[in-house]
Every structure is written in structure tokens, then in C-alpha cells.
């Protein structure tokens, strides 16, 4: 497989405002929203990043787009450092209404990225706009509409068209269907899949909806408080979840048989020790090593790894 995007030991640090006490005692006032994550993305695949809010799934995408700076580690595109200004990376946001300018028509919204990234003349731009609208299942009648005149599904289509305008290689879709109604969601999911096939796009799809991830994604990465806990082909992970967190998460899909550690404390990135395993407080399988150091990734299946000492079989 050829790798299009590589995250190598990436750290994104958020500084929190400390108080006098924390300054005097030298306690840290900040945390790593993305904590030493290594991940490769193959050309043409749809990689799902799943996790609860605060897990760093959006932050890692924003780091790749240069919207957050990394504290350490490297993000490379096809072996070269990221170049964020050539339009080869694009993002689709969760809320289509607030990601479009309410005072610009659809055509104007699509025209801006075209002008910024290409030196086409006016006629070509008009043609391209029509083509983009057709690509996302709209037509030239929508050119002069304003965002408030469109429904949620149509707006998200326009947002996708705008992302496609610069002929990107990689699209980051941040919860792109979670604000949409159920009857419209299927349309957008099918659209993303067909666009991937048509343009050989690479899509990084951030979601907390496990059903949606199952349908759309070739591989899935499970994140928890900045750490990547499990990575593997979606079908394999769903059939054989290894990390205790993944098991708990995927267990919620089973209506009759699920166990949730509801009352246990979750990890608090500001006050808890960051060295032990993040999942320590909720995990039913805690061992001595877990309290010392967050585990590395261990292979658990074909192209499938989990960050858990349960799968450290080297001594056997």
C-alpha cells in the first residue's frame, strides 16, 4: 500500500491557565490533547477515527491541517513535510450552516477557493462550479441560493463541493453527518463513498457514531484522551475488539448485553498522572504494569494493533 499521510509520534499540547498555587508548586498546567500518536493513512482509504468527546480525534485532524501546531513529532504527506497551502488537504465541518458564509451565494462560496488556488479565467470557474455542484448531486439551479434557503442535507453537499474545489488528495470530515437527519444521512454517506471511488480520495472520517463508522470506514482508529488505543481494519475490529475500551464501546451496540462502568471515574487530563494507562480507572483487567506506564501498541491480528498489556506476548 502506498502511504499518503503519516503521523509520527505526534503530540499536540494545550496550555491551560494555571493558578498561583500551581505555579509555585511547579505543577503542570496543561495537557496533551494528542499524546504520542503514530498512524499511517493509505492512499484511497477511508480511515475512521472514533472516540468520545475530549479524545483528541478532532485535534489530530486540525494538527494535520496546520490549525494546531504540534509540540513534537512529525506529520508528513507522501514523505514530505506538510504543505498546507496547496489545497491538497481539506476539511468538512460538523455544522454545514455555520461553515458557510450566510451572506454569500453558493456560487460565491465555491468561487473563493477556486480563485485562491487556481489561476483559471472566469468562464472556466463557472464551468467548474457547475461540475462541482453536479458531483455532489446538486445542479446549477443552486448557484444563486443563499445558505438559509437550503436544507441541512443540501448545505452539507455544498460544503463538500467547496472542499472538492481545490482538488484535494485528503479530506478530513469532522462528524460530517452527525447533525443531519436520519433520512438525509444515508444520502451523504453514499455520496462520500462514491466521491472516494470517483476521485480516489483519501478520507479521514471523525465520528462518534459506531454504526456510521462500520458502514463507511475501511480502517478504524479508536482514541481515548489523546491516546490511540486500537487500530485495525473496521470489520476485524468490530468482529474482534481487543482493547477493553473498544470492547466497552462496541458493547454499547449490543442492546441486550452490555456492561458500562458508569460510576467509575474517567481520566482527568489536568489532575491525573499521565504516565499510567489512561484507561486505568475504568479497566476491569488492571495489572501492575498498567500503573507504571501507558502501554505501547501490540499486534493482535492482521494489521490490527491494540495499546494494552493484555496483548504483550513477548515473554511467552
Amino acid at each position, binding site marked *: 500500500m502506498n502511504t499518503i499521510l503519516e503521523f509520527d509520534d505526534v503530540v499536540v499540547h494545550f496550555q491551560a491557565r494555571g493558578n498561583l498555587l500551581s505555579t509555585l508548586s511547579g505543577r503542570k498546567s496543561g495537557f496533551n490533547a494528542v499524546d504520542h500518536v503514530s498512524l499511517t493513512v493509505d492512499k484511497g482509504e477511508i480511515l475512521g477515527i472514533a472516540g*468520545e*468527546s475530549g479524545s483528541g480525534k478532532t485535534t489530530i485532524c486540525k494538527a494535520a491541517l496546520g490549525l494546531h501546531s504540534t509540540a513534537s513529532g512529525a506529520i508528513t504527506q507522501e514523505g514530505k513535510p506538510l504543505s498546507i497551502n496547496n489545497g491538497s488537504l481539506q476539511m468538512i465541518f460538523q455544522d454545514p450552516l455555520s461553515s458557510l458564509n450566510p451572506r454569500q451565494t453558493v456560487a460565491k462560496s465555491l468561487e473563493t477557493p477556486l480563485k485562491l488556488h487556481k489561476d483559471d479565467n472566469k468562464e472556466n470557474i463557472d464551468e467548474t462550479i457547475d461540475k462541482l455542484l453536479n458531483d455532489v448531486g446538486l445542479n446549477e439551479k443552486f448557484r444563486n441560493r443563499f445558505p438559509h434557503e437550503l*436544507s*441541512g*442535507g*443540501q448545505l452539507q453537499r455544498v460544503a463538500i463541493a467547496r472542499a472538492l474545489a481545490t482538488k484535494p488528495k485528503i479530506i478530513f470530515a469532522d462528524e460530517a453527518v452527525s447533525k443531519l*437527519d*436520519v*433520512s*438525509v*444521512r*444515508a*444520502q451523504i*454517506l*453514499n455520496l462520500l*463513498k462514491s466521491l472516494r471511488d470517483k476521485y480516489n480520495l483519501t478520507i479521514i472520517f471523525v465520528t*462518534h*457514531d*459506531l*454504526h*456510521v463508522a*462500520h*458502514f463507511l470506514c475501511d480502517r478504524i482508529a479508536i482514541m481515548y484522551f489523546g491516546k490511540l488505543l486500537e487500530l485495525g481494519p473496521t*470489520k476485524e475490529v468490530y468482529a474482534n475488539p481487543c482493547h477493553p475500551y473498544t470492547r*466497552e*464501546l462496541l458493547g*454499547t*451496540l449490543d*442492546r441486550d448485553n*452490555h456492561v*458500562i462502568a*458508569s*460510576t467509575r471515574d*474517567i481520566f482527568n487530563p489536568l489532575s491525573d498522572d499521565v504516565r499510567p494507562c489512561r484507561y486505568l480507572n475504568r479497566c476491569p483487567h488492571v495489572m501492575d504494569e498498567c500503573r507504571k506506564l501507558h502501554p505501547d501498541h501490540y499486534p493482535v491480528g492482521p494489521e490490527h494493533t491494540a495499546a494494552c498489556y493484555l496483548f504483550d506476548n513477548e515473554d511467552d
Partner: protein
Amino acid sequence: MKMLDVKGLNISFALDSSSINICSDVSFSLAQGKVLGLIGESGSGKTITCKAILDLLPENAEVEAKEISFKGQNLLGLNQKEFDAMRGTAMAMIFQDPVGSFNPVKTIGWHFLHAGKRRNLKQYGRGRIFDDAEAALKEVEIANPREALKKYPHQLSGGMLQRCLIALVLFLKPSLIVADEPTTNLDNLVERQIVDIFDKLRNKIDASFIFITHDMTIAEQISDEIAVMYAGQIVEHGNTADIIDNPHHPYTRALINTARELESDVDVLTEISGDITSGLGVHDKCRFGPRCPLHSAECDKPIELRNIGNHGQVRCIKAESFEGHV
């Protein structure tokens, strides 16, 4: 006993020169201790219907109904003061956004004291009210209720806050609880916790629930009956198992089909073309018509909600063509 009986509810909003119809001919009843799942997408009128029952709509709303009765009492004739006495104590609403439901500069305990005034618990004093509050918080699986009462909303996570909000409503001991998408803004795990809590509560207390959601799988777990709304009308209403196993309206069928497909291995999802805007404000024909695979000329007339055998009610003249297969 019938807890709630709604007949022929019409809601419109007055604009400058015209008015726009939001809900038309909404009728349902709810027995004591039962849970009604109200399903529909944004714009289908499910929240508006419930707000109309609790008289929470803004002033430009025009509410007309043949009957809205609660425990046999007609709500339509009540004045503002009489309604105030009932709201919160006899019927209560849990909103979608727990953060916005709490006063950010007051502790959780303050909210319980404030709500205690509603229940006329003033004579009990703080101690007794906090004891009751703790019991309610335990009910929703808050591990350390005494601590939680001292916390401010921003110190609690979204799931914790939603549970505190549910506890606050339980504390008031209403007999009708409307929960408006209480899990929509939450993560899978937390969503599952909240649904489990509701599932436990409905067997424990004898209140009736209206559970508004757009998620068919949640409605399936939690409700005794399901009413599906589309563009301001109830299009199908019946027992949960009946609706899930054998949906009769093409819209319900499509919703269930999409949920099923996401769980199974398919390459392309079956789409419902178009969106709900095509059905809004339509009066003289089927509102789902423009999106319906079965649509034909006969559908271009007002469609009534009708009983189908012992299945429940369906607003579709072609419902029988689905009989027996999902």
C-alpha cells in the same frame, strides 16, 4: 387510566401578514406508566407538539385542539396561573441541552432548593430537601451525590449534568415527563448509560413518559408505543414491537431500513431522496408524497390517519402493500 389525551391538535405560527402551519391533526393518548416514543427528524413537529401540551410555546403560536386533557382535566381552559402550578410538579420537561438548562453561576444544590420551592417543600428546610435531592441523584447513579450538590455545572461532564437534570425532574415527582432528545448531544457510552437509566426508571416510578428522539434503536429499547411524525403529522402510531417488526408507512419503513443497513454489511445505503422541506405546509395531499417510492395520483388528496387491523394507525392509503414483510 389515561394520563394524557390529545385530540386534533393544530399549531401554527403567526408571521407578519400570514401564518405558517407547523402541526396538523395530531392526536394520541398515553396511559399511566407508559412510555411513548415520539420519532421524527428536525422540522417534523415533535418538540412543538410537546411544548404545546405544556404551554411553553411563544406568544405568536396559535394552538387549536379539540381536546388536550391531563388526568381527565382539560388543559385548554386553564389560565397562566393555573398552568404554572402544574408545570414542573405535575408535568415536566427534560431538555436536549443539559448545559443550557442549568444556571451556570449556581450550584447543583441551589437548583434543587429552587425546585423545592415549586414543590412547596419550603417548610422542610434545607436538610430535608437535600436528603430528597440525594435520593434522586442516587437514582440516576451519581456516585457521590453529596459532593455533586456542591458542584457548579461547569465542573460536571455532559453525561453527569444530564443525569443531574433527570434527577431534578424526578425530585419533583411529576406524573408526566417529556424528555426531548436527552441523549442526542452525548457520546455512545454516555448515551447508553442515560437510556439504561430511563429504562430502569420507567419500571420504578409510575409516571408516564414521552420520549422524543430521532433514533429508532433508542425508541425501540425504551418505549411501549411509538408515534412517528413527519412534516407535522403523525404518520404511524402503534405498539413498539408492531412498528419495528412490521412498519406500514413508507417513511417508517425507510427509517427502520436505514438503521438495519448500517448494522449489517452493505456497500450502498438505500436512500430516501429529497428532504422534509418538500412536505411542510402541504394540506391537500400526502406530505411524504414527493419522496415516496409508492407515490401515485391517488395519493394527491388529504390522507387520514386510519386503523389497520390490530396494528395501530397509519396515514397512508397504500399501507397494506407492506403487509407481512419488512
